[in-house]
């Protein structure tokens, strides 16, 4: 399985695998419950101690200067443990990577690095415009410039929810849009969490309704952040889909090698073999797509590849996870093997960034 990765990532891969096994698998999955909804603070703290939260930052401010490709490996491995925590890390790292090249953001990143091993570590959140809004709301966020400040009106999705992150980077559009980095305490969620009980339970997301929200001069970031953040998010969430799907595939394959029906192991049934092989094909195609998007330059091609990686991995991961449930039959539909959570997480990840219609029309 490790031959899927660039050999230079070997140390990172091993650390990430160890982290996912010890801190995510088993421990975090218990948080997937409506009886005891929880946020995986302990796993995030351990990740902070290991330096994961600072990965993309330059070495002079305590980071590891990890490339986007390296980050996809990290996120994929964490997602093999569970997709919810991987989504939290993916969002945080997408923001950190977008801010890493901005001189004015360095003090904030330094603060984040210092607080990354706190009991509740410093986490960044991301906020993007809702892609589909009620008819009485602005379809595209309205931004007015006033005396060096900007005033924003519009509907946004924020993840993780402002209650759990310290700062939120909010962007108002696709390319060359305004972006601000604000204290999460200034944001109040609008409506309930977006995915209650339907997947990614360890991860929280909420709506934000801003009406003439004033962002001050020191909160306003460079306009290039918007494009970078979106690209990072799409590539890293695609990597989370990949890890989630690979874990589902592994469970299904293992089950097929053990379960006996009609007097033989089900993997010996040609139809089951076909399903498993198709799942593996999909996972391999996802791997290629994620790597391609991660290594692409920061230009139009890179943009398009990131968008396509996110949409392709969304549908491929859903199908792989659904096929995993199908392979396990009744057992797949129940909690026992964890694949039913994989499929719910895949669906929630697929829906996170907005309506698919805008995704497919994005390149039009």
């Amino acid at each position, binding site marked *: 399985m490790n031959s899927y990765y660039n050999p230079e990532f070997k140390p990172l891969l091993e650390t990430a695998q160890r982290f996912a096994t010890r801190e995510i698998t088993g421990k975090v999955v218990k948080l997937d419950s*409506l*009886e005891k909804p929880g946020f995986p603070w302990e796993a995030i703290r351990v990740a902070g101690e290991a330096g994961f939260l600072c990965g993309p930052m330059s070495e002079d401010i305590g980071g590891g200067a990890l490339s986007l490709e390296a980050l996809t490996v990290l996120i994929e491995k964490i997602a093999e443990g569970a997709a919810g925590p991987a989504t939290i890390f993916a969002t945080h790292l997408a923001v950190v990577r977008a801010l890493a090249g901005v001189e004015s953001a360095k003090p904030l990143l330094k603060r984040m690095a210092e607080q990354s091993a706190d009991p509740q570590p410093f986490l960044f959140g991301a906020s993007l415009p*809702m*892609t*589909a*809004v*009620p*008819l009485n709301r602005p*379809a*595209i966020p309205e931004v007015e410039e006033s005396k060096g400040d900007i005033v924003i009106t519009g509907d946004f*999705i924020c993840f993780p929810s402002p209650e759990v992150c310290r700062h939120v980077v909010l962007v108002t559009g696709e390319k060359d849009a305004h972006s601000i980095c604000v204290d999460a305490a200034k944001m109040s969620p609008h409506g309930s969490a*977006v*995915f*209650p*009980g*339907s*997947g990614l339970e360890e991860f929280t*997301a909420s*709506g934000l309704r801003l009406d003439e929200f004033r962002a001050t001069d020191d909160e306003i970031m460079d306009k290039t952040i918007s494009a970078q953040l979106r690209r990072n998010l799409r590539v890293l969430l695609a990597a989370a889909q990949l890890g989630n799907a690979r874990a589902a595939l592994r469970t299904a394959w293992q089950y097929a090698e053990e379960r*006996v*029906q*009609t*007097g033989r192991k089900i993997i010996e049934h040609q*139809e*089951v073999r076909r*399903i498993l092989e198709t799942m593996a094909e999909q996972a391999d195609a996802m791997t290629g797509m994620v790597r391609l998007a991660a290594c692409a330059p920061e230009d139009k091609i890179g943009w398009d590849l990131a968008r396509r990686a996110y949409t392709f991995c*969304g*549908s491929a991961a*859903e199908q792989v996870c*659904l096929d995993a*449930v*199908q392979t396990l*039959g*009744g057992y*797949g*539909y*129940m*909690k026992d093997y964890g694949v*039913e959570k994989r*499929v*719910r997480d895949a*669906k*929630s990840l*697929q*829906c*996170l*960034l*907005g*309506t*698919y*219609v*805008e995704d*497919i*029309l994005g390149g039009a």
Partner: protein
Amino acid sequence: MNSDCMSTDPLPGYPQNTSPMEGIKPAKITAPGTADFPFTAGEIINHFRLAKRFPASYFTLVEEIRGRAKEFADKHIRPGAVELDKKISRDPTYFDWELVRKACPYRFFSMLIPTEFEGMGCYSLHMATMVEELAVGCGGTASTIGVHSAGVSCGMISLDPYVLEKYLRATAQAEKRGEPILWGGAVTEPAAGTDIWDEDFLEKAKIVTFAKKVPGGYVLNGRKCFISNGSVAKYFAAAAALDPKNIRESWSAFLVPSDTKGFSVGRIERKMGQKSSPAAELIFEDMFLPDELLLGGKGMGARAVSIYLAGSRGPVGAIGTGIARRALECLVDWATQKKTGRGRLIDQQAVQLVIARMTKEIEEARAAYVAAGLACDEIFLNIMSNPLVTAMLTAVPHKMFLNPTVVKIAKSDFAKNMIYRILSKAAAEDRLAQTSALATIAKIKGSSVGVNVSGEVARIMGPDSADPRWPVEKCWRDAKLTQIYEGTNQANAITLFKDTVRTWR
């Protein structure tokens, strides 16, 4: 192919005794086998001819049942479905008895019970129509009521006067009192899933539930798993083998009341969806069942399961169809109320064509289960109109069915053979294979449409798919189960291949 299917009734508008094809010689088909392929256009037209033979009341009832189910779904299921789903996520032992009680006046629980035993006298297509409407409200609640009807149908197929009078009449009477009695079917076992649903695989299945003949009855030991209505049903139609060395020949069905000594409910499952329909493990420990509770004859289980599946797989497709309808309804409503930078979503071609494609898929799924329902109901109507069955239902005072001597006669090998012959005649090998094939197509089609439509709607709606106003994400979770229960779609595909080839050759 059964020649009875080829009705020679004249079509309306044509003179009597004159075929519209008169003078036109059928083409001579030389390719081997193609002449008898079961799903040619001619065969599909036969469904309409079949329908002509059914009493008009059959179709009136379809519309009536649909109306009742729609009303119940709109008034009682929809408003609380999302909240119920969440509540059961927190506590899987919770069952909404209040909702089930509210269904009593609609008479869903006595649908399949003959009118002679205070039921509605409905058939498979009625059941399918009902569950489609219920599934628009909630896939889980549709399953609870659908599984009940499937359990009742096992009692019906046995044509056992004792069971009809004592258990089915009691079910209909309880419904009238507003105290619902639920049924379930218990076939799947921990190590035997797919293979237990196909009689050809039975011999190799790792079955753990066996019945041992003892004086006056049978002692059952074993386990059943993922049994829908398992923790709430009062009666189960359970399958067990009498002879471990000869499972297929000794595969038998028993009526298991849940208050029998030795019966217990094990783990109640935490499911991905259809949460309002509880699935549980059933444990049988030295459970004694009197002779009267053997449904049909010894070793009739495999045949009964085939007939049962021919009637129950179509309704599973209908549940998928209903779930897809709800998801599509959500999409239309959502797209009308939402806009993007390009304007209202409903005005976008990308959305309009998706809606058109989904509408087509849903109609195809519905056509599939209607075809399966008509074919299946022809079998059931033939069974019920058999002179012996008619005499039993109408000429004999029903109270006599509980008389020990009558029970003894009804349970005799002679009577069982007679019933077996009636079933075999009505569900002759070819006819059953064709009906089974149609039911399997309906199941595969409906369940796939349910998963694909709700999945795509969720993808279009993005984060809004988890909004309680448009519970598409729940629809998608609910739909997935329809591809698994009543045999996975893969197991169904194997059955379809065998049934079509068997009919074709």
